[in-house]
Every structure is written in structure tokens, then in C-alpha cells.
């Protein structure tokens, strides 16, 4: 429903991964005026080769189209990085990539 992109960027000391979700992150501020009801990402998980590497809990004060990034010190070439998220309405998304 909401496109998810995962960027894997090699750095000197490891791998940096950025996840961008094209999510509106509605805070529900104008819901009683006929505006969109609250809908924002509440949880986002990075996995390295299937095991949880970092877990983020997000609130409504994270910006629209959030970009969340983290760092993998021990990732090596061929490792699989996955990211998955869930919003307050129950929508889910995921993306994955391989370290080159």
C-alpha cells in the first residue's frame, strides 16, 4: 500500500541502512474536521540475516515519509538486510536488500 525503499550504503566501518516509507504519517490533528484520521507507523524493525538487529517504536511526531536509518558494524558482503514496519491502522510493509 505504501512503497518502502531500503538503501544500503557501505561505509568505512560497516554498513549504513536507510529505510524510507512513503507514508503520510497522519497525526489525527484534524480528524474531527473531516480530515484524515490518525495513521502513522508505530513499529519498524531491521533484521540482519533473519535475526532482529534494531527495533524502532515511532510516534506521531516523526515526519511524513519517514526515513529511519541505522548502522550494521558486522555486516559483510552477501548478508541479507530486511526492514518491516507496521502502522496504527494495521497496514504493513517490508523491503530487503543484499550487502554487496
Amino acid at each position, binding site marked *: 500500500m505504501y512503497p518502502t525503499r531500503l538503501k544500503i550504503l557501505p561505509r568505512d566501518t560497516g554498513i549504513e541502512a536507510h529505510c524510507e516509507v512513503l507514508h503520510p504519517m497522519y497525526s489525527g490533528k484534524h*480528524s474531527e474536521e473531516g480530515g484524515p484520521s490518525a495513521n502513522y507507523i508505530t513499529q519498524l524493525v531491521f533484521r540482519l540475516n533473519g535475526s532482529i538487529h534494531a*527495533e524502532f*517504536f515511532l510516534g506521531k511526531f516523526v515526519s511524513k515519509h519517514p*526515513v529511519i536509518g541505522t548502522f550494521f*558494524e558486522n555486516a559483510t558482503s552477501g548478508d541479507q538486510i530486511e526492514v518491516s514496519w507496521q502502522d496504527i491502522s494495521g497496514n504493513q510493509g517490508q523491503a530487503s536488500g543484499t550487502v554487496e
Partner: protein
Amino acid sequence: MLNKRRFLQKSTRWFALGTLVSLLPGVRTAFASRNFVDPRPEFASIDTKLILEFYFGQTEAADDATIQINAPLVSGSTQLVPFSIIAPGAEKLVVTSTVNPQPLILAMDQIRETTAVVKARARMQQTGDIVCYVLRNGQIGRASRRIMISGHWENN
């Protein structure tokens, strides 16, 4: 008797005027904006101590110079304030803001690396601080960084 009647008439008029004003869309929006509450208590909390108690089990925090917060000095929008945090030895990490009605922006858990790195973009309602709390060896470290929102006049 006459004074009492006049007082009642004036009170009734002011009450009617107040009721009409409260029905105007702009005024209703101002009140409605505070209505939505996050179902998670830590995100609905307005008290930072409750947030720290929830995530770390304690509230005593000390300033920690090893936590590095990178953010622009000035941000052009309240809706897009980028920041990145580097916290060596962090087990858990909480990012809050001093100016939003509910302080908690995000929390990071299950950190597998020796150094936690977070990059994100936040909403801030006005000029204020981004404060990062980090749990390390059973103690809470704190660092903050002031970000000015351009267009907002700060009354010093």
C-alpha cells in the same frame, strides 16, 4: 432588583456569545487537535519521567558527552527536522522533544551493535531541544541539542 435583572441579561448574552464562538470551525479545530491520544501510554504521556520509567525502569539521568546528536542549527519547517544520533554502548535509546505536547518522538530497542546509530526526521512545533536518553550499563545518559525553527519568533 433592577441591577440583578441587568446582571442576568448580561450573563445570558455573554454565555450565548461564548457558545456561538465555540461552534466556529477555527475554534473547534484548536480544541479537536488535542483530542487524539496515542493508545500506547508511553507515547501519550506528557511527562518525560514516565517515559524513562517505562523504557529504562528508572528516571535519574546524567549528562553524557559521548552521545553525539547531529542536527541543523536552523530548520526551515516544523514538519521536517532531520537529526542523527551516535551513542556508543547504548542498550536502549529514547529521543524526545521539549516542545511537542507529547515529548516522545521515537525509541530504539534490541540494539545489537556496540554503537547505536539512529537517523530520522521529526516534527517539532517550535524552536526547542531534541533530547536523547541512552541506557548504558544500567545508567541513563542524556544529551540535548537545540534546533531553531525559522519563521518562529522566539521571545527572549
